[in-house]
């Protein structure tokens, strides 16, 4: 029985190497092992641009509490080899308290890592692996990392059994040897949560897919784009299991229109994309607004503009999502603020799209989308908002001017209420109209449909108390929360970005004298949006920078 010194409640580890080294596999197994042992945490990945054989790193943050933020420093960087791993230096910041585990057979760690003051701990991964027939150095590295944080061997074994299709026994043996290498190092032992409860292991993209299905989506149109592709690929088999279908489209112009067509037919529909794809979809989203057809688009934001950095994160599509459509086209924009929130946020988006008969954009991002996180099992919300359907009887007015702005929608197959959905401006019956009165009336209708929405408490995550508040959204929320831990600072993370909720924000910021707006883009899109829609009290400061690097708590603390 080991004597455990003071344990940490959070450890950050990185495993790097070139292609073929199995970095991702080992990283995933470490995450699974930590999950099996009762921990929380998440794993993110990074890689070079090559399709195969490129350098890669798996970054894990493991903790005794749910989190999807990165820490300020990594405690351990382990490398199977050092080929081109230096390119990840900015993503794997080290400090004097960190250690670098490297295989001396592949030379010294690059200077860029050593200059942090981290201690080099050589472990002959290749040689050790060589001692077992059929074992690979990455499994030794896995053992090293597991051993450093004090994971029980049983957890490592369970993870290996789950993922390894061949070479299981040599792999386990290699991992055990790796653990033995760091037997005497106790500095990074991770405490386990007292009552972990039921937990899930899920990525943001999978979570968004699940949220869509929970919300009732049964038709998906798909055009692949990094980093949204996995969302669509998860949905393809999942949909067939719940009686739905997915069609691969020829481009994003097609995918959004397929979703609109299916939705017009009465089936809740969705597509997912990233910035470049959303740009293509904007015209047709306007059609959804004018013809009042529900549809959900998940935008897994990546570094922009234009092709940008496809594999990295940013929060630069806010302007596009809110303002992108030509004309005044009120619609819904929702931003999940954690990996697990991708479920609830997407489900909510589907519900709002259906009940308000309007497009809803979900602003996720690459960080949330591709992070695999260990989270508390999310509660199942069984209440869904459905679209109001028209029945036959009487002269049907598809776009009737109701007080709520919501007019019942006839579903094809229903007799007596056929109509033509139109992007042309129209009167109540749906007949194209160029009359000023009709245009104003329909604009008012579509606007009040959205502005009269009362989102309840779901509009934002509001936490803490203080005279200083940090206002943010999306993936910045995790690092902000971490930076504010046990400080008298309020956190307001908006989930409903559009329509704006000035009354609610005013209430949330009562007594606040200083506001820090945190966002991950260059120009301050969120700050400008807040300024245009809200009165921010007192002194307002902006902390903003573009991707690709995620925010770290110390950046936010320095700005406070």
């Amino acid at each position: 029985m080991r004597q455990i010194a003071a344990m940490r409640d959070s450890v950050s580890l990185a495993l790097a190497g070139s292609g073929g080294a199995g970095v991702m596999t080992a990283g995933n197994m470490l995450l699974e092992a930590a999950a099996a042992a009762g921990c929380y945490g998440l794993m993110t990945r990074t890689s070079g641009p090559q399709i195969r054989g490129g350098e890669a790193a798996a970054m894990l943050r493991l903790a005794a509490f749910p989190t999807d933020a990165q820490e300020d420093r990594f405690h351990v960087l382990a490398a199977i080899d050092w080929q081109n791993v230096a390119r990840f230096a900015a993503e794997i910041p080290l400090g004097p308290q960190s250690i670098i585990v490297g295989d001396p057979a592949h030379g010294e760690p690059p200077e860029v890592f050593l200059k942090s003051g981290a201690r080099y701990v050589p472990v002959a991964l290749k040689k050790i692996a060589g001692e077992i027939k059929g074992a690979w150095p990455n499994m030794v590295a896995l053992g090293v990392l597991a051993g450093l944080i004090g994971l029980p061997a049983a957890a490592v074994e369970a993870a290996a059994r789950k993922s390894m299709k061949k070479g299981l026994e040599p792999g386990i043996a290699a991992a055990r040897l790796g653990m033995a290498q760091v037997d005497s190092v106790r500095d990074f032992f991770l405490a386990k949560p007292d009552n972990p409860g039921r937990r899930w292991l899920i990525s943001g993209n999978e979570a968004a897919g699940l949220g869509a299905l929970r919300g009732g989506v049964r038709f998906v149109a798909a055009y692949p784009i990094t980093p949204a592709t996995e969302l669509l690929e998860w949905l393809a088999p999942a949909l067939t299991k719940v009686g739905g279908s997915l069609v691969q489209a020829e481009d994003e112009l097609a995918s959004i229109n397929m979703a609109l067509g299916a939705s017009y037919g009465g089936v809740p529909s969705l597509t997912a994309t990233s910035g470049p794809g959303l740009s293509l979809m904007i015209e047709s989203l306007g059609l959804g607004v004018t013809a009042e057809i529900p549809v959900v688009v998940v935008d897994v934001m990546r570094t922009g503009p234009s092709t940008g950095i496809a594999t990295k994160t940013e929060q630069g599509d806010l302007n596009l999502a809110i303002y992108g459509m030509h004309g005044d086209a009120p619609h819904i924009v929702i931003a999940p603020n954690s990996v697990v929130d991708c479920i609830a946020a997407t489900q909510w988006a589907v519900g709002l799209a259906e009940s308000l008969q309007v497009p809803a954009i979900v602003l996720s991002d690459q960080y949330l989308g591709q992070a695999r996180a260990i989270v508390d099992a999310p509660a199942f919300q069984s209440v869904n908002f459905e679209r109001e359907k028209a029945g036959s009887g009487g002269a049907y007015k598809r776009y009737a001017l109701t007080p709520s702005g919501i007019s019942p929608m006839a579903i094809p197959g229903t007799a007596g209420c056929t109509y033509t959905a139109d992007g042309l401006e129209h009167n109540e019956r749906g007949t194209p109209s160029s009359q000023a009165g009709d245009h104003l009336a329909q604009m008012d209708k579509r606007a009040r449909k959205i502005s009269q929405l009362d989102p309840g408490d779901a509009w934002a995550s509001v936490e803490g108390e203080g005279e200083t508040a940090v206002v943010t959204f999306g993936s910045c929320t995790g690092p902000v929360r971490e930076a504010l831990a046990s400080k008298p600072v309020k956190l307001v993370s908006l989930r409903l970005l559009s329509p704006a909720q000035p009354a609610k924000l005013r209430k949330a910021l009562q007594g606040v004298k200083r506001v820090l707006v945190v966002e991950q883009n260059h120009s301050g899109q969120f700050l400008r949006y807040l300024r245009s829609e809200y009165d921010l009290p007192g002194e307002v400061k902006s902390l903003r920078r573009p991707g690709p690097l995620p925010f770290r708590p110390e950046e936010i603390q320095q700005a406070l």
Partner: protein
Amino acid sequence: MNAPLATVTLQAKDFKSDYKPVWCPGCGDYSVLSAITKALAMLALRPENVAVVSGIGCSSRIPAYTTCYGFHGVHGRSLPAATGLKVARPELTVLVASGDGDGYSIGGNHFLHACRRNVDLTYIVMDNHVYGMTKGQPSPTTEPDWPSKLAPGGTGLREFHPLVIALASGANFIARAFSGDPNGCATLIAEAVRHPGFSFIEVLSPCVTFRPEQRGWKDVAHPAPVAFTDDPGRAARRIMTDDGFNIGVLYKGNRPPYGAAQTSPGSVKDLEKAFQL
């Protein structure tokens, strides 16, 4: 008395709405509208079970002129909208209406893939070799020497051959119709709807305003000299050497129509098990 009895099924006029079309008097599209209503009556369908999907252009105004469910979408995107609708609601009969600009220019890419995908749709393109709604620009099927404001000396570009493209991309039924023969057009449309998979009818439909010389088409349109073939190679030779005025079914293929993946009626809760630790 040997009197013929009344029919119980709907008649063509039951498929025509009260909306007065904005098309110029003399436009071929009136004829196509008449043909569609006749075809739907012939097929004994009901308006609520038929959807007419269109893009933007004179031809695309057609959905509201029927009593069916209509979808008047954005320029060039009628085929994906119709695809989504049909895959989500396979029991509906879905017609897609377009023109040579909407369908072959901005909609060109979707045309290729709709033929490939072979979803059970009927695609009716009213071709008048011009952009009518925007008042007289060349379209992909316009003759290279036709003068216009955008291209005063003519485009100099070889015309697009939609029937060849349709064949090469996998369309399962290819026909050419002429608005000057609304009854023949009606028969072709009915046949196209009956035929499974992606059925494509290019309808020569003169624009009397911007191409008044097209009134002369009735003197050159003629029935195809041979019956349709189901051999793509033979069809390719015929369509490549076609004079552009052969009327009738030119090709009927045997590709099975698009079938969505088999589904099983499970629950979302079952899917969540994969995430549970």
